């Protein structure tokens, strides 16, 4: 989230699209209720289902799963056609005025440079015209036909209200009412907030869905302001933290990158990370990349990482593919190429698509290790549970070690919420039986592996033998020690960069912020964006002062918010070119003639003069991007792409299936179904009584929602002869499940052109372990394909068939 949960009270309009906060984030949704009750804010919900969020909305519109880009581009088109644009913001704070290369273009649903053989774009034309001065060419009048604004205007011109009705199935009058409501928020004294979650991410073009709304928010001038923002509600309690710390194939903590094998040495790696400003005088904060990277390497390998050995660069793995994400790993596992696999608090046979493939893959492992507080389906994947897990136990040769871990209630440490607050918590109970903390388990495993290398030697022992491990008890590092390590400390005396006589951090001291990070090896820090969380003043994450001067909702002294304790990202954009708040009633930070000050930590150098330095300091342009250059694989603007399994062809190119650059493994392509055989659209969702596959272990929640069901409209029930509460079979090209039928008006058939599209809702909370009745999940049916940029599986739009079941489900 760009803004914290408590900021939602400042909004005038909430749009929930791609999420269902009232059910999935109930106590955060309370702030929407607050804004409605005390500020007169309105709530719009756009969703295939009339959700509980929709039930308290001021206005609702249905939409066909997987067609959001059409809706969003049409909204942008309407804003442009009706002059609902925050012009000063767009002209100065976005790249609207920058000039794009002549070679860039779009045709038949594809951008310039498409190679169907490689399923990839040559993105060289997706860039600015760079002048002789090294800066991007600009036309502040926005008259140049090749400026981003005019290209955007042309790009969205084909997305009309009529196209929305035809492709999304959203009635035209509903779409028009919604864009009128949104358009009011282009005024400087109105703000809209976007709240979204997995309803937008779980698509083969999920990242482009989110881009679409981010662009709309920029055009309205709603980014960086109180009550505005792009608010990814996110899922689990520390999903944000795990992402921040980079527990992904291609990441280093703080959104740095694991090198590819094309970056054979440090110099080459750094050469593509210069981040020179693309406009004069801009901050381009990523120019500090070497400081963050060297400090990370020092946190890993300490004194063994030196300038002479390029900070032990060779010890970092180098990737030959973009990422060994889970889909790739299960593809390799299914091909018999993976020996050992660890699942730490993760239940892949319910979480990953095409469960049949996931089970087959796990059956080919030599060793599976699970670490969890609860008995997971994955740890028991080899157990036969009748139709709910119909495996041949004796033939599965995988050895499984199931390790008991503590739960949240028996562990100390910090979690990052979706508003980027790092909040510390304390253990309250004794772990059951022999359960141990994850930190203890990881330390035990590592120390034993290290000892084997010490005793026996082996292949490439250096990165293991030299890993820093200066914990008081090497077999049980404490949360405090680890938090301090992530914050960073001075390894030698650190001096001010402009005044070399001024000591900023003495040797051995915790660093105060990432401004003190250095690239000469004099500092270490595991996760630069967390710097400031544990300083010489102590554990900042444990702060508990809930005062909030003038009720802005920023709560600056509650816990710690990355980066720099900043509560609203891009908050410089809440003020105009002179540094005055666009809306005096919504003041966040202002320029006082000498520096920036206000209710939040300024997202800009405190002395950067307004007018000189743009508000989007992480970008080389100093501006936000309506046109993303080559940063996304599937286009610099969002363009409509159908789901891989769709009831109707792409209106722009009927031959184009799904996302034309998404990675598809051969065996999975053979398992895509078509609408001839599978005429109905299915989508997955959550219930407010359950949290994923955990609460079915809890008798109270299991009693509240005891049994798996699928949700269908009365029209589909009538068409198929399905009775309310009757048992149905639902199947896709990949699997078949049985369920109770919930016949409900919350789902309605959508008229998309001349095709009537039925949608089936499938909640995701059941399995074969725990206190609830045994059941299935959507992943028994879903396709094994992910988003083209980040490989999040396409759970929200796929094809199935349905019929009344002839026999009752066994339970």
């Amino acid at each position, binding site marked *: 989230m760009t803004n914290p949960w*408590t900021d939602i009270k400042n909004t005038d309009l909430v749009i929930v699209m791609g999420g269902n906060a009232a059910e999935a*984030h*109930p*106590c*955060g949704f309370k702030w929407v209720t607050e804004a409605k009750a005390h500020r007169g804010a309105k709530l719009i919900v756009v969703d295939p289902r009339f959700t509980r969020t929709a039930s308290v909305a001021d206005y609702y519109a249905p939409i066909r799963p997987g067609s959001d880009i059409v809706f969003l581009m049409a909204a942008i088109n309407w804003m442009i056609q009706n002059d609902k644009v925050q012009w000063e913001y767009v002209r100065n704070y976005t790249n609207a005025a920058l000039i794009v290369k002549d070679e860039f273009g779009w045709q038949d649903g594809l951008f310039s440079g498409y190679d169907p053989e490689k399923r990839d774009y040559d993105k060289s034309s997706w860039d600015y015209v760079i002048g002789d001065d090294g800066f991007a060419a600009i036309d502040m009048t926005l008259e140049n036909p090749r400026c981003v604004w005019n290209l955007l205007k042309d790009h969205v011109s084909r997305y009309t209200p009529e196209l929305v009705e035809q492709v999304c199935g959203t009635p035209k009058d509903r779409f028009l009412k919604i864009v009128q409501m949104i358009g009011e928020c282009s005024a400087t004294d109105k703000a809209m907030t976007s709240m979204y979650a997995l309803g937008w991410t*779980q698509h083969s073009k999920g990242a482009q869905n989110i881009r679409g709304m981010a662009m709309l928010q920029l055009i309205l001038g709603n980014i960086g302001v109180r009550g505005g923002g792009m608010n990814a509600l996110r*899922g689990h*309690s*520390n*999903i944000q933290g795990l992402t921040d710390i980079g*527990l*992904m194939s291609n990441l280093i903590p703080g959104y740095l990158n694991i090198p590819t094998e094309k970056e054979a040495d440090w110099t080459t790696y750094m050469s593509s990370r210069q981040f020179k400003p693309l406009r004069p005088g801009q901050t381009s904060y990523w120019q500090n990349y070497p400081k963050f990277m060297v400090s990370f390497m020092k946190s*890993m390998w300490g004194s063994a990482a030196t300038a002479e050995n390029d900070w032990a660069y*060779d010890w*970092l793995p*180098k*990737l030959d593919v973009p990422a*060994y994400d889970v889909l790739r*790993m299960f593809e390799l596992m299914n091909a018999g190429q*993976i020996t*050992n696999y660890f699942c*730490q*608090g993760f239940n892949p046979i319910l*979480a990953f698509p095409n469960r049949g493939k996931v089970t087959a893959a796990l059956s080919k492992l030599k060793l599976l290790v699970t670490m969890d507080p*609860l008995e997971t389906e994955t740890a028991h994947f080899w157990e036969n549970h009748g139709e709910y897990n119909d495996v041949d136990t004796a033939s599965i040769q995988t050895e*499984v*070690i*199931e390790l*008991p871990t503590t*739960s949240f*209630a028996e562990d*100390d*440490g910090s979690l990052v*919420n979706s*508003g980027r607050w790092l909040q510390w918590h*304390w*253990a*309250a109970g004794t772990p*059951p039986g*022999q359960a141990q903390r*994850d930190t203890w388990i990881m330390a035990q*495993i*590592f120390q*034993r*592996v290290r000892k084997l*290398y010490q005793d*026996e030697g082996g*292949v*490439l022992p250096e*990165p293991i033998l030299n890993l*820093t491990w200066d914990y008081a008890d090497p077999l049980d590092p404490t949360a405090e020690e680890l938090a301090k*390590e992530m914050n960073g400390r001075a390894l030698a005396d650190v001096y001010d960069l402009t005044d070399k006589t001024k000591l900023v951090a003495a040797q051995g001291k915790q660093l105060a912020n990432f401004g003190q990070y250095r690239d000469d090896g004099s500092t270490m820090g595991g996760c630069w964006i967390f710097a400031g969380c544990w300083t010489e*003043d102590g554990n900042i994450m444990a702060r*508990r002062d809930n005062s909030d001067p003038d009720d802005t909702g920023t*709560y600056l002294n*509650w816990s710690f918010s990355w980066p720099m304790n900043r509560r609203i990202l891009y908050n410089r954009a809440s003020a105009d070119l002179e540094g005055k708040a666009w809306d005096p009633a919504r003041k966040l930070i202002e320029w006082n003639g000498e520096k920036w000050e206000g209710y939040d930590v300024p997202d800009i150098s405190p002395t950067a003069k307004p007018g000189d330095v743009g508000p989007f300091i992480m970008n080389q342009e100093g501006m936000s991007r309506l046109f993303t250059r080559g940063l996304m694989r599937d286009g610099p603007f969002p363009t409509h792409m159908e789901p891989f399994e769709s009831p109707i062809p792409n209106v722009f190119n009927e031959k184009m299936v799904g996302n034309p650059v998404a990675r598809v493994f051969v065996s999975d392509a053979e398992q895509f179904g078509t609408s001839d055989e599978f005429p109905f659209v299915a989508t997955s969702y959550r219930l407010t*009584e359950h949290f994923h596959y*955990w609460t079915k*272990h809890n008798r109270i929640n299991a009693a*509240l929602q005891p049994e798996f069901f699928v949700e269908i409209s009365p029209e589909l029930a009538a068409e198929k002869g399905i009775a309310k509460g009757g048992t149905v079979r639902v199947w896709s090209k990949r699997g078949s499940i049985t369920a109770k039928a919930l016949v409900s008006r919350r789902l309605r058939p959508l008229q998309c052109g001349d095709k009537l599209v039925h949608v089936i809702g499938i909640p995701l909370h059941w399995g074969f372990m725990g206190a609830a009745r045994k059941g299935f999940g959507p992943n028994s049916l879903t396709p094994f394909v992910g988003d083209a940029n980040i490989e999040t599986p396409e759970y929200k739009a796929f094809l199935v068939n349905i019929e009344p079941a002839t026999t009752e489900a066994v339970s």
Partner: protein
Amino acid sequence: MNIDLSRRGFMKLAGAGVAATSLGAMGFGEAEAAEAAHVRAFKLASTTEVRNTCTYCSVACGILIYSKGDVAAGEKAEIVHIEGDADHPTNRGTLCPKGAALKDTVHAQTRLTEPRIRRPGADRFESISWDEALDKIARALKDDRDTNMILQNDAGVTVNRWTTTGFLAASATTNETAWLTYKTVRAMGIVGFDNQARV
């Protein structure tokens, strides 16, 4: 602001003070004292209060956990009650249907209490000691790493990647667990590394 003094510590000090002084200081006579002795004490008065965060979604509601015993003091502590933290700016004491039932997840009948192993082809788990389980895991890691570590690619570039062992990290563990996991996995050269954010 004294950020090293946790609320738990503060409450304990305050609680002890109240217990020792209230009856006398508030002017109870003997009759009232005798009457008070018959009134059952509030259940939570004898518990330890600890600040925590709901384990479910990323709203991160503040919760207060009440235990018999103080785990921070090295005592055995049994969790007897969990409720919303009224001082927390986001949830202000409220909890959803999941958070309100947190205690039953902590005490779920399917909580794991010992390491177990399922041998190849077996139809059940059997107990295994921590030592034996961890030694087995370490041996499996080293053997596979020594066999399959790719030191150089075909072009002779040093790549030092290990693709045949994978690690899937959690989404409700702490940042501190995440960091220690990161260090361990990366130092070994594992590239098949992912977490719940992917889905």
